[in-house]
């Protein structure tokens, strides 16, 4: 199984600066029942991003909501020409509830860009992206990059119901072939997903697979990857404090050369080799 040569990337001594800056909110609106799109006006120095990277957000504090640590959030879109930075998020607790209170014109402190993003190697022509729910947020910039690099992209998007299928138009506009699957329609089962992927492999072939989050999808792609010798990458989450590699609170275990190693999601990740990843 070919492991992706992640460690050929420059380490921190050569790495780009990390900026802590105040941005202004352009908008912060619900996109459907569960998710909100946060659009920031951001200086160009923080918009030199890679798909898969994230920012560490300082949530506003009010009388009722007092999150303390920053919250990590994948970059949903970065547009240096417009000076915009986008996040797609789900309100789950105190920090994201506080972010949801931000209004146009408010200041918002962000730290980034952080972590190591996805690779699209030169010989990876046919890309497959598989995501569920808010995981699409993490994979969306990859679609933009694939278009820029002129690669063919197929996106399998899964959700509870049609209502929760996000960004399908966004992927289509970028020239991706989109395959929506939902629990409601009974199409989102692992078995069905498996046969769809096998079909794609038989048809045009797949050179690389990308995913994030879901354990079921991880296991499936690992199986497919092993069987057909297709490399892949996964974006993972873990609770964070510093977000830049200092505190070691964000470690996860990985399988590497037969041994279990701990890596920091904020620094060695959040994007990791698909076969090395261990679900939780």
């Amino acid at each position, binding site marked *: 199984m070919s492991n992706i040569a992640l460690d050929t990337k420059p380490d921190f001594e050569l790495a780009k600066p*990390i900026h802590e800056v105040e941005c202004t909110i352009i908008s912060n609106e619900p996109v459907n029942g569960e998710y909100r799109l946060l659009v920031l006006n951001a200086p160009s120095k923080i918009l030199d991003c890679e798909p898969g990277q994230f920012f560490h957000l*300082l949530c506003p504090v009010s009388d009722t909501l007092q999150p*303390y*640590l920053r919250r990590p959030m994948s970059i949903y879109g970065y547009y240096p020409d417009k000076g915009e930075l986008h996040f797609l998020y789900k309100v789950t607790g105190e920090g994201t509830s506080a972010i949801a209170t931000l209004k146009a014109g408010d200041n918002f402190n962000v730290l980034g860009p952080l972590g190591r993003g996805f690779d699209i190697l030169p010989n990876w022509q046919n890309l497959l992206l598989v995501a569920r729910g808010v995981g699409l947020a993490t994979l969306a910039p990859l679609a933009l990059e694939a278009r820029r690099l002129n690669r063919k992209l197929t996106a399998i998007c899964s959700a509870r119901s049609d209502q929760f299928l996000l960004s399908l138009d966004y992927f289509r506009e970028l020239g991706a072939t989109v395959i929506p699957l939902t629990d409601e329609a009974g199409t989102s089962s692992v078995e069905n997903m498996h046969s769809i992927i096998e079909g794609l492999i038989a048809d045009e072939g797949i050179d690389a697979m990308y995913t994030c989050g879901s354990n079921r999808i991880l296991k499936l792609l690992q199986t497919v990857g092993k069987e057909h010798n297709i490399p892949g990458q996964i974006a993972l989450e873990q609770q964070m404090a510093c977000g830049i590699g*200092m505190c070691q*609170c964000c470690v*996860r275990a990985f399988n590497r050369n037969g041994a279990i190693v701990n890596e920091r999601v904020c620094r060695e990740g959040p994007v990791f080799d698909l076969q090395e990843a261990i679900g939780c």
Partner: protein
Amino acid sequence: MLDLTTQIGTLTLKNPIMPASGTFSEDLAQVFDLDILGAHVTKTITREKRSGNPTPRVCEVRGSMLNSIGIPSKGLDAFKTNVIPFYKNYDAPLIVSISAGSADEFASLCEDISVPGVAAIEVNISCPNIEEDGKAFAMRPSTTEAVMRKLRNATDLPLWAKLTPNTGETTEVAKAAEEAGADALVVSNTLLAMAIDINTKRPKLGNLMGGLSGPAFKPIALRMAYQCAKSVEIPVIGCGGISTIEDVIEYLIAGASAVQVGTATFINPPIMVKMVEGLESYLQSQGLHSVKQLIGSVVDQEASDGLVFMEAAP
């Protein structure tokens, strides 16, 4: 000319602001020029490789946090080949934090880490002493003195003893460390604490308990720094909850010769740079020319009896 320098034994620091162990690493060089700092303090290392505690390793509590990171360590050799050379690019002195489970292992690690490039050794004696009853060395004067004597014999480098707030004998422990040859005290490490998720009824940390750090902890660590500064001649480095320049000044007034900043860097990574700038403006605004004029300037009417007594008070 403003003089920001401070003296920690034989070491002159160009300013009194440095990071706290475990909340700093080479990675911060991507945020600002690390030579702005008075010193660099590494995460505690052990001789052997260790993986650290189970996750979740942190949780937040009102305006502060708990951590149970433990001491994941890549080991002594990796540290010598990867970390020490990195800091040779900087003028700021490198302070290496070490830990071990017994006094003898502690001493031998101390000897082996006394290499060129290391300016001082911070001994994290707030970690459990496996030979005794698992209680931290710095919880008692006797175990503090025993381990510090062995450490003193193991190196000629300056030794900074990092104390724990989990003791009822702060001044006695401080004096024991001084007696046994410590060159400075770092006051202090985190306070043992706990948080439970009321929905799942599970402790919020994988390790059940962990250390409180951040603003909520400041008054406790400040009290300890004050008590220590009152009871020993060696310099005290204040640490705990420092997140603003006012906090830095407060510790200096309490008697600290320098300060370490921990959790605040997680919330605001360039905060130490702002503190150095803020210290300059503060001195200027007060018509002071040197940090040394601030150190120990607390107006406390020398309430010396109160010090020991207060430890027992509610």
